[in-house]
């Protein structure tokens, strides 16, 4: 006679009896990957000691683009909110940074969170309006908002209007920690500013990745996935789809604004056309996500490194470079729609930052009552 208390007979029963089955997300590999990631981050923090200023500037580009790509991936991939107007928040962040430092004389380090808050506030205000647009029309609607922001900033004469302005040295000379970094690394103040921006970019990129990872693994992440798959079905089981999407939208705008401020602290020159550029802040970002893999955290890391390489070899060709990027993205979507990492992960089953829930037996062989 079968033993009804056998754990393998029913996972639910077993769960009630003390968990011979359990839901897991992490694997041995993912724990190893987390360990390696910590080492890589430690190395990156220490890098300015040995790296050239050129490399630091390149890495600022890589880290800020990575953060933007992860944010877009969270918004569009996991959240189903496909926006092509995130340049709105990059530009707003940049303009708030300039306004706070040039006009109000604030420390740039204080201006950066304010830039994020302002971007988040604008997103919170415009969100309800944009959410009235269905799926693909939301995409173009967000683009219109970005254009409105660009045109309004171009009218703002104190920050140079349509032609823009440069960040005067005086505005960043009082940055907290600048002198310390200068004496620590024995470099000039311009290079020290790059190092500070680099650390900020590194911090923000990591914070974005960790936040998204925790979010996707949480109950909220499950709710998001359900919302994306079917709004009606997710509502019927009590998920407040609208509220979750709205929260994600505002959060992503906040972080995008911060990244925008960081980028323009390093560039130190702003113009409406550059700060709200759809090519720089959306086309590249989409390329990174498409190449690496939508809905993966590892994908954009690979994508941004590839973009960096392509930029290095092809950027001198200007239009041809962008033409090639566009064509690569189309071919990828047609033949490798899950991206390089997504396809690799699917074939090999390897996930470094796993987000899927797996049902596993906690104990390989559930203990049977041995006969007396």
């Amino acid at each position, binding site marked *: 006679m079968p033993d009804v208390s056998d754990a393998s007979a029913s996972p639910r029963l077993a769960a009630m009896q003390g968990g011979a089955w359990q839901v897991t997300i992490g694997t041995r590999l993912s724990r190893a990957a987390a360990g390696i990631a910590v080492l890589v981050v430690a190395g990156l923090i220490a890098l300015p000691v040995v790296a050239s200023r050129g490399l630091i500037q390149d890495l600022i580009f890589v880290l800020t683009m990575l953060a933007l790509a992860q944010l877009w991936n969270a918004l569009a991939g996991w959240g189903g909110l496909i926006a092509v107007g995130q340049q709105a928040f990059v530009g707003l962040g940049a303009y708030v940074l300039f306004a706070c430092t040039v006009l109000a004389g604030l420390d740039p380090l204080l201006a950066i969170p304010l830039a994020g808050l302002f971007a988040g506030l604008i997103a919170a205000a415009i969100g309800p309006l944009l959410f009235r647009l269905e799926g693909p029309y939301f995409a173009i609607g967000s683009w219109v908002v970005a254009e409105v922001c660009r045109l309004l900033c171009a009218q703002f004469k104190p920050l140079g209007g349509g032609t823009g302005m440069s960040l005067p040295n005086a505005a960043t000379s009082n940055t907290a920690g600048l002198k310390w970094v200068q004496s620590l690394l024995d470099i000039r103040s311009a290079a020290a500013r790059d190092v500070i921006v680099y650390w900020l970019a590194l911090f923000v990129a990591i914070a974005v990745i960790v936040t998204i990872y925790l979010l996707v693994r949480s109950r909220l992440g499950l709710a998001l996935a359900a919302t994306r798959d079917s709004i009606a079905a997710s509502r019927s089981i009590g998920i407040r789809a609208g509220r979750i999407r709205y929260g994600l939208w505002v959060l992503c705008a906040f972080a995008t604004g911060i990244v925008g401020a960081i980028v323009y602290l390093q560039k130190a020159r702003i113009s409406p056309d550059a700060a709200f550029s759809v090519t720089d802040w959306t086309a590249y970002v989409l390329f990174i996500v*498409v190449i690496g893999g939508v809905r993966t955290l590892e994908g954009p890391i690979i994508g941004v490194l590839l973009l960096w390489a392509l930029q290095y070899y092809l950027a001198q060709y200007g239009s041809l470079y962008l033409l090639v990027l566009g064509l690569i993205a189309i071919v990828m*979507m047609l033949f490798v729609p899950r991206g390089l990492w997504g396809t690799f992960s699917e074939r090999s089953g390897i996930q470094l930052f796993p987000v899927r829930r797996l049902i596993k037996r906690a104990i390989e062989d559930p203990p049977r009552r041995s006969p007396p």
Partner: protein
Amino acid sequence: MEMIDTILQGVLLGGVYALFALGLSLIFGVMRLVNLAHGDFIVLAAFMVLTATTSAGLSLPVATLLTVVAMFATGFALQRLVLQRVLGDDILPPLLITFGLSIAIQNGLLLTFGADSRRLDAGSFETRSIEVLQGLNIGLAPLSALIVAVAAILVLQIVFYRTSLGRAFRATSDNPQIAQLMGIDHRNVYAVAVGLSLAVSVIAAVALGIRANFDPAIGPARLLYAFEAVIIGGLGSLWGTLAGGVVLGVAQTLGARVNPEWQILAGHLAFLLVLFLRPRGLFPARRP
């Protein structure tokens, strides 16, 4: 009088915007797809007509006709060979592909033609005008753009509601699976829809090219105007799209009257205002 003139110019400009919008509206209506490269296809068509008239020495009507045929074929092939592969419940892949196309077309045009502004040569036609009232002149070119827009909508309405092709469009739009059971190959229906959309875009391109300068970078802005006309007018209604184009055009000319730098901004703000007050547009189709 100056005010009337401004509004009249806006109405005429609206005809061009309605022409931009028709192709976008058509594809969305039939297959729920938004072509992010729509504006760039309009610019591409303008450059094709330009090349046919300047390099091959064809007359403007002949060049336009040839480009219409070429763009229809392009759209048909684009749908069958590219978009059809990614069409499904997930709207992300087709959006990303059309965005990639947008970048590729823009930069391809930039490589081929350079960044200079161009204009289509329509001879004396572009400068001629008729006097409606004392001191109130209407340019012949803008007026014909509006007339062509109305004609194009009439033709599309007849195609949609009086022909078997239109029945196939509507059936596939409602439910592709059931349409297929009725013997309609939805892949061909979609391909014809995209082809038709690009063919209409050629008309829009000629209207644009006679009236104003164009260069490879202006595509995305045309996409936004087209989109705004569609949303202001209300989804699913072609006459609504014309009205949307007119509202957008009038908003832009009124904005430009106050300050030339505010022209585009005024149009965008009018769009946001309509979205705020009437989220379904001014003249939504009766069908939900």
